[in-house]
Each structure stands twice: as structure tokens, then as C-alpha cells.
């Protein structure tokens, strides 16, 4: 079984999916990434799907799962390089991939990660008393 290589560049993990993965390889990648996020303390995960010709509901769910899992482990996930035909097909399939951040290419994805995230929302509980 081929494993998808996970590269580390400073505090970012980079995964470039090449070719047609079977479902087992997809699940393996999900587990490998969770392990590597914890082992490296990475703050960002970039998944490059430039070479991916189709994203079906299984792969789509894997991308959302990785993003959710990484978020729990204090890392932000960005999917880069989605082909236009893949985007059109995903929307018609009914997968909106809500909660998944995307960028058009690797460079924009890295730029997005190095930007400070939004300030945490101030809730009412934290407002100064009497204001």
C-alpha cells in the first residue's frame, strides 16, 4: 500500500496528493496526519489536491475530517489547488465542505497560514462589568 508522504516545512505540514487514491489509502493518510500534527506540533496543514482528478463524497469527507481533527490538535488546515471541474462537481454532488478553508495554490495557502488568525470573539461574559 502506497502511503502519501507528509513533508514538514517549519511549522507547516504539507501533503501533496498524487493520482488516484483508494479508500484505504485515504483513511491511512487521515491517521498519519493526526499523528504527525501531534508529533511535530505543527500549526498548519496544507493539502495540495492539484493532481486530484475527482473528489467524491468519501474524499470530501476525509478533507473535512482532517480539518476538524487538526483544529482539535491546534492546527489550521487549508486545501489548495482544487481544479475548477472538481469544484463544479462537488457542488452538484451536494458537498459544500463547509468549514474547510481553501486557497487557489500553494503560495496563497502558505500566505493564508502565516497571517494572524481572527481575534477570538469577545463574549458577553468577558465584557467589563458596568460598560
Amino acid at each position, binding site marked *: 500500500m502506497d502511503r502519501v508522504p507528509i513533508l514538514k516545512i517549519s511549522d507547516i505540514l504539507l501533503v501533496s496528493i498524487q493520482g488516484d487514491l483508494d479508500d484505504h489509502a485515504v483513511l491511512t493518510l487521515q491517521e498519519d496526519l493526526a499523528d504527525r500534527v501531534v508529533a511535530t506540533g505543527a500549526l498548519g496543514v496544507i493539502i495540495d489536491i492539484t493532481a486530484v482528478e*475527482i473528489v467524491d*463524497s468519501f474524499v470530501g469527507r476525509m478533507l473535512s475530517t482532517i480539518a476538524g481533527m487538526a483544529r482539535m490538535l491546534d492546527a489550521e488546515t487549508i486545501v489548495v489547488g482544487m481544479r475548477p*471541474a472538481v469544484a463544479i*462537481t462537488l457542488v*452538484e*454532488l*451536494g*458537498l459544500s465542505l463547509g468549514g474547510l478553508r481553501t486557497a487557489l495554490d500553494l503560495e496563497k495557502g502558505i500566505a493564508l497560514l502565516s497571517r494572524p488568525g481572527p481575534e477570538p470573539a469577545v463574549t458577553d461574559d468577558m465584557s467589563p462589568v458596568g460598560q
Partner: protein
Amino acid sequence: MSQPPRVVAPAEELTIASNDEVVIVRQKVRATAIELGFSLVDQTKVVTAASELARNTLVHAGGGHARIEVLDNGHRRGLRLTFADNGPGIPDLQLALTDGWSSGGGLGLGLSGSRRLVDEFELDSEPGRGTVVTVTKWTR
């Protein structure tokens, strides 16, 4: 007027018994769609539908068969895919075609989603008798 579609190329029969064979179905469907001159978007749609339906066959029925046929209706050429299994069948077809309804822990988009990606969609199933899904996509 279009004529009744006729099959113009010998059908290709594929077994679906493992994840590898789901990948092979995707690759054969893509190769045929390219041969027929489908646009890149239509290739992507029909291969995605094939992937959903082949996975359904594997996950819900433990495997089955896929048939790939090339059709001609006098105007346009079409790609017809048939997925057949001898699995448990589907008790409620309407429910199975509803977005988000799933029996197998998936997203529930396999049948309903792939129906939106093709031009014609036929679902034939009865509990205990297995399931046959036939989809057709025509060139534009």
C-alpha cells in the same frame, strides 16, 4: 428526432470486490469518457458518479459488477454505466434517494448526489434481490 439508443461498442464488464477495483472502475470510465469526447467537467462528473456507485456496490452489498457501454441515439453518443449486485437490496427507494439519508455510515450523497451528476438515472432494487443502478451521460 433521436432514435432509441443503441449500443455501439462491446460492453466492458468489471468486477467490484475491493477498493482497488473501485479505482479501476474510475479509470476505465474516465478513459471511455475521454474517448467519447466529453468535456473536462462532464468527465469529472461521470467519473465521480461512477466512484460513488462503485463504492455503494462494495460497501452495501459486499461487491458486484460494473458494465460500461457506449451508446448512440443518432445525434449524440452516450456513456451508460450499470452497477449490479446481489446484496440485501433497498427497502425504501424514495428514502435511499434522499440527500443525507445513509444506511452505511456515509454522508448519504452516493445515490442522490450521483443522480445529479448524470443525465439519466434508474434504480431497481428489492429487499433480498439485490440492486441495479443504471446511469447515462450524453455528449453535448
